[in-house]
């Protein structure tokens, strides 16, 4: 009994102001170089995969993979419209499409790769994704019809609503 009490007095974490614990993180120097990590594509386009595609190729792919939910011509069906209504954001009934609302084209690549189509995420290769981006953007002349998108040209696309967002954080409301 006394021995336990002594143990408590000498070694109790209650006597330590800082939490006492063993650092159990495993060295992960290698992971950042592995393809399965750091998937997020940022507006600078730094880790965009190599590839290329144009609107014409994209149109075929869209019919095949996307139109059943997003409608023919990407005007929306059971899933939201992706094109059209550029400039509608101050209207009484604004429409938030990729082309009218999204501030960065890199986000389109990022989201298609990780989440579309929902039945098979990560199933489209980089050429296919660039082609789909080109198709969607060209519908509202954000991209000229014959321009090829790739890891260099995609981040250069300026979306119509690039300056449309004002951050609440870190400014307090």
């Amino acid at each position: 009994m006394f021995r336990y009490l002594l143990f408590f007095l000498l070694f109790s974490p209650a006597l330590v102001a800082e939490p006492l614990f063993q650092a159990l993180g495993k060295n992960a120097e290698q992971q950042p170089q592995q393809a399965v990590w750091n998937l997020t594509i940022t507006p600078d386009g730094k880790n965009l995969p190599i590839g290329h595609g144009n609107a014409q190729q994209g149109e075929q792919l869209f019919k095949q993979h996307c139109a059943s939910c997003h409608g023919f011509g990407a005007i929306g069906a059971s899933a939201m419209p992706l094109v059209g209504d550029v400039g509608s954001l101050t209207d009484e009934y604004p429409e938030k499409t990729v082309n009218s609302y999204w501030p960065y084209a890199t986000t389109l690549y990022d989201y298609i790769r990780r989440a579309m189509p929902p039945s098979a995420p990560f199933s489209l290769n980089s050429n296919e994704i660039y082609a789909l981006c080109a198709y969607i953007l060209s519908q509202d002349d954000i991209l000229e019809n014959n321009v090829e998108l790739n890891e260099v040209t995609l981040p250069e696309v300026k979306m119509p609503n690039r300056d449309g967002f004002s951050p609440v954080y870190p400014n307090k409301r």
Partner: protein
Amino acid sequence: MRKSLLKSRRQFIQGTALSSVFLGFNLPLKAQPISTELQQSLPDSMLKPGANFSNYGQPSVYEKDIIRWISANPNVPGNGVSWTPLEELQGTITPNGLHYERHHNGVPDINPSTHEILIDGLVDKPLTFSIDALKRYPQTTKICFIECGGNSNAGWRSSPIQSAAGYVHGLVSNAEWTGVPLRLLLNECGIQAEAKWAIAEAADGAALNVSIPVEKLLDDAILALYQNGERLRPENGYPVRLLLPGWEGIVNVKWLRQLKLVEQPAMTRDETAQYTDLLPSGKARQFSFTMQAKSLITSPSVGMTLPDNPGIYQVTGLAWSGKGKISKVEVSADGGDSWVEAELHTPILDKAFTRFSLPWQWQGQYAVLQSRATDETGYQQPTRQALIAERGDNSFFHYNAIVSWEVNEDGQISHIYV
């Protein structure tokens, strides 16, 4: 002048006369019946052994209708929500089976023995943490709400929706979350000075990704492993989720697999296209994160009918604020002309549901019941007109206005805008 329909608690007690009606009668004592008569007259449950023990308990069969209502896309059944039936619950803790869900592509099946979290980017030492390792760190517990940024968004519609309270406002739930203070792990990795944001990524079929300020992660973020004392439910992020008390649901990333520390937000789909509030100017509020104070009368509420006229009803509901504790909830029975302070049930916790109640003596008149929350920062829940004046009516997300329940002379309750 309109007469206040709501009385203070003392007036209410003085005015109560109903109980005296029942005081005047006595039953004559009967002789003790013999045992066969008891067998014929006692309830069945007393005349035979009950059901066996169960390995994992379930609600009573008589409560089978108390469920989460599901709203999902028929073409993508894993994309949608299920709503907590707030109007059917009491207290403040949401049972795990009724915690609201928002999934972007279904509930993943993740084996905890192979799942790891990677913390990398602008750190001195990128590290991975297994679930077994996380369980060995000091654990912290926080009771708090999680609310979807899209909760109550039917409030933006031009006409008031008549669905049950939970089916409109039930994308908020409150639970006790336990796990590792994230700052311990970030400090173990060594955060570099330029690291201002972390890109969080989930291991689900949407690989959901959002950017989160490092400041919040170092403040009160938890890598939650337990929900109301048991391991997380799959639909709430098993085996590990991010918990950011008071911040909108989307950043409380479930099924977390990576935190990458970076200088700038990644501008992912769920922080640009979604969860941003479009204003009449055409600009959109982004990274609004903190859920503002809100309250809701859960009973009586839309779709219910008051059974007795006149009658006494316990008006009760929930209040919460992402900025801290609730300091006051007021209730009105006349559409906001007059207010009475409701009782707040203890404990009143930071960034958690607070239950309020107030007895109400209904005399059969037309009434409009409302609740209005104030939090410890002094912020007061706005009227619908004030919210729309500030944000327009195409904001879609982050709706926290006062909710109005109209009681007609027959005791039927509907949702109105005042």
